[in-house]
């Protein structure tokens, strides 16, 4: 065997070896897309407006307290939009103090004096920073929640420019529960109940409004409590509470939350406070012994127990929960509250049985197609057909190997792409073989017919396959998930078929004709 033959043979062996070994064993090494493995794909939008609004309200609150510390009473703030608020009630004589305070503590705000007050606008970079932070916090929180759920290989990726988060959970079989878990803002607040003073809530909003003479004061808000049947946990009624519009103690002050059992063996949530939180909570409860405190979750009152004495570091949330609800709530509270609301833009869940069906069917079709193609090549090209079959087999190995090696994902369209490749891969071989036949027909010797055949077919092979490659490129660029999988397998298939047709087939022909002397005939 001459040297070129040897080196080329080794190169082929090397490439095939690397790729084949990275794909073995196949069912472990090959990454399957969600449409084949089963699982969930979610695209969430972080409603960063919520976070911005929260910052505004916090700063408004802060300003008020700072002014109070400076003995400026009567100052009022009113939020005008997500990023602006108005301050009124500061006498002109204290302007200097106001400016000083703003300089020192509210540097993120632009202050403009107006006729009846001062307008505060959030600076742009602070706003964008807040939004950005909200997205990354949301990702972290979601990641924590999903970790607690125990999914293998979750994928959580951000698209920060669009404020989106993409979540992929392979193998998840309870989409409704997962969605609730992720979306659970679990924003906990403790608010003092203003009315009714005797616990149990009011039976209608009207009753509350009547108490205030038809209009709620600014610092009071009506909140709803859903009453559930203890056995079936279904909502059977509603109670209404007038509560403080602001909360000083929130879920952010929680140190820990654990599932527990209440006095009637019903599932409850036990929680404990951080040192800071404990102080605030202690003050809140200490100042309000005898009153009722509403425990509010995501804007709904869960329970409103009476404060019997000062509590600082721990407490209980009970509200006719199921075991499952308690578990999810604890997970949500533990992983931190979501900084902003979440909206689902896209959701795809495929059960694993559908995926398995697809794999089975794809495999069946692939094998059938492959067998038919192989038979055709053998019939038409006789012994040279083996050359093509060998190249085809190599192609399949190379495609699966490349997918495994590069960690690409195989999707259902990807399987179709492989089957397509099986059909088209022989094209390159056919182009070459037809040329060789032509050259033989023209009377050339076997070796020169082979050489000419390959040379003349080469440009055809390139031009034809590159155009399909262009299509695959754009599919990859603009496609998502399964389509990308298809584009990848198609591209890999094309490249490997060019390789096998031009390099490997040539090597095989050379191998067969490598003995010295004239070759009379070529079985083609």
């Amino acid at each position, binding site marked *: 065997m001459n040297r070129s033959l040897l080196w080329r043979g080794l190169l082929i062996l090397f490439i095939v070896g690397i790729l084949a070994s990275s794909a073995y064993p196949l069912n472990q090494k090959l990454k399957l897309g969600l449409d084949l493995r089963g699982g969930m794909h979610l*695209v969430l939008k972080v409603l960063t407006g919520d976070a911005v609004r929260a910052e505004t309200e916090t700063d408004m609150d802060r300003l008020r307290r700072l002014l109070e510390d400076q003995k400026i009473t009567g100052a009022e703030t009113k939020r005008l939009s997500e990023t602006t608020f108005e301050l009124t009630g500061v006498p002109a004589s204290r302007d200097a103090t106001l400016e000083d305070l703003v300089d020192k503590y509210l540097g993120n705000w632009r202050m403009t004096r107006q006729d009846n007050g001062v307008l505060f606008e959030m600076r742009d970079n602070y706003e964008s920073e807040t939004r950005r932070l909200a997205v990354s916090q949301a990702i972290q929180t979601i990641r924590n929640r999903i970790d607690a759920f125990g999914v293998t290989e979750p994928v959580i990726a951000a698209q920060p420019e669009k404020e989106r988060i993409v979540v992929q959970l392979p193998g998840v*079989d*309870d*989409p409704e*529960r997962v*969605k609730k878990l992720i979306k659970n803002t679990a924003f906990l607040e403790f608010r003092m109940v203003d009315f009714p003073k005797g616990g149990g809530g009011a039976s209608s909003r009207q009753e509350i409004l009547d108490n205030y003479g038809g209009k709620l004061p600014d610092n009071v808000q009506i909140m709803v409590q859903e009453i559930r049947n203890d056995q079936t946990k279904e909502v059977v009624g509603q109670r209404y509470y007038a509560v403080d519009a602001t909360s000083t103690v929130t879920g952010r002050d929680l140190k820990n939350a654990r599932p527990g059992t209440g006095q009637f063996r019903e599932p409850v949530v036990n929680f404990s406070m951080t040192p800071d939180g404990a102080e605030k909570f202690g003050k809140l409860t200490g100042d309000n012994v005898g009153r009722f405190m509403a425990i509010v979750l995501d804007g709904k009152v869960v329970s409103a127990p009476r404060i019997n004495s000062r509590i600082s570091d721990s407490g209980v949330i009970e509200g006719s929960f199921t*075991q*499952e609800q308690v578990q999810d709530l604890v997970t949500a509270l533990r992983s931190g509250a979501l900084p902003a609301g979440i*909206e*689902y*833009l*896209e*959701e*795809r*869940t*495929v*059960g694993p*049985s*559908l995926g*398995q*069906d697809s794999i089975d*069917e*794809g495999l069946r*079709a*692939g094998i059938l*197609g492959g067998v*038919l*193609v192989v038979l055709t*090549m053998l019939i*038409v090209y006789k012994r040279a057909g083996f050359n093509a079959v060998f190249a085809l087999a190599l192609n399949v190995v190379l495609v699966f190997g490349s997918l495994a090696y590069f960690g690409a994902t195989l999707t*259902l369209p990807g399987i*179709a792409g492989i*089957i*397509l490749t099986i*059909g*088209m891969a*022989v*094209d390159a071989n*056919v182009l070459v073989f*037809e040329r060789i036949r032509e050259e033989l*027909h023209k009377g050339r010797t076997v070796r020169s017919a082979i050489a000419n055949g390959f040379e003349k077919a080469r*440009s*055809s092979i390139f031009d*034809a*396959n590159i*155009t*399909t490659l*262009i*299509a*695959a*490129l*754009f*599919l990859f660029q*603009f*496609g*998502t998930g*399964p*389509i990308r999988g*298809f584009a990848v397998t*198609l591209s890999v298939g094309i490249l490997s078929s060019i390789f096998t047709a031009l390099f490997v087939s040539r090597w095989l022909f050379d191998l067969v004709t490598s003995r010295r002397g004239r070759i009379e005939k070529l079985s083609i």
Partner: protein
Amino acid sequence: MEFLRDTNIDFMKYRKGFVVISVALLIVSVLAVFVHGKLNMGIDFAGGTQLTLQFQERPEVNDLRSVLEAAGFDDVLIQRFGEATANEVLIKTPQAEGGSEEGSQDAVLGALDKEYNPQASFDLNRSGAEAIGDLLAKLDPEGVTAEGGETAKSYYTGIGQSIVDARQKDGIFTSWDEVKNAKDVSQSVFDALEKNASLGTYSLLAAEHVGPQIGEELRTKGILAVVLSLIGMLLYIWFRFELRFGVGALVAVFHDVMVVLGLYALMDFEFNLTSIAAFLTLVGYSVNDTVVIFDRVRENMRRSRREPLRDILNASINQTLSRTMLTSGTTLLAVGALLLFGGDVLRGFSFVLTVGIVVGTYSSVYVASPFAMLWETLFGSEAKSRRGKTSRSKAA
């Protein structure tokens, strides 16, 4: 086996007739897409919710429809899915008003549940392993909670997983026996489940929801992918061949896509992202096919500059005929297998490719080539004088 070796068919002689046929096909297709019931848009582009359900017994599509319509869903599409024995159904609802995303899915399931699962207890056909584990942990039929909450929970979640796996075999539990026979399900576990849970009438195989923003983005991306691909290919062919061939190939591609699209619409296949992939592949294949012929043309032109285009085209087509038939044949075998045995999800995809290969092969001969001839006739003399120089400079 040699065949089609020295054919000398005058393809171009019949071109006028075939062009008429092509134009007729095009008109029919355009009508089919834009007039006959339009293209069946999948939720990828139109937005909305799509649920794949498996029932214990074969459901009546009309019954399902009336249940959903009674619940307020007007534009519901219900299709049978999968093998006839499998009792699978596809339900598509369009974008809900006000864009409340979960609204649609929960609402549809809620409406169905009221009718088909009225008892509202724990449904073994709809729960995941964790949920089953939680239920078992509460009931504790095997008395393991004494060992600790966490161990008990993971123990029962393991049993839950076995139950879910067993359910996956047929996609749904039709009888309690199937649950009893599941791995790891002891008598006590089974008794506890039978008392406290039920087997719902249907299970959820797949659920998809696409909101309006994403739907629009996917539409835009889809269109961009197709348009840019076509431009890219045109540029490439122009670069490697002459303009008239590039345009000829492009016209052939438009023809192919349009005709297949028309048939696709007539067959009422769903048009979604996978379809875009199929059509782009079709484009690639069609150009592929045309390029092979034009490559021959280029070679023959170099060899005999004086010969009229028509003869060169004929010669080239005849010379590549065996290759064309063989490649189309083998690819057709492969995608044909996919069409017949590849399952429902890919059926539209394989249809596009199967029909596309046939149409694509046809168009390389009877659309691209006549068009190149037409171009030459229209811009004739310049082309003739250019041919002398460009065929040299365009040498591969």
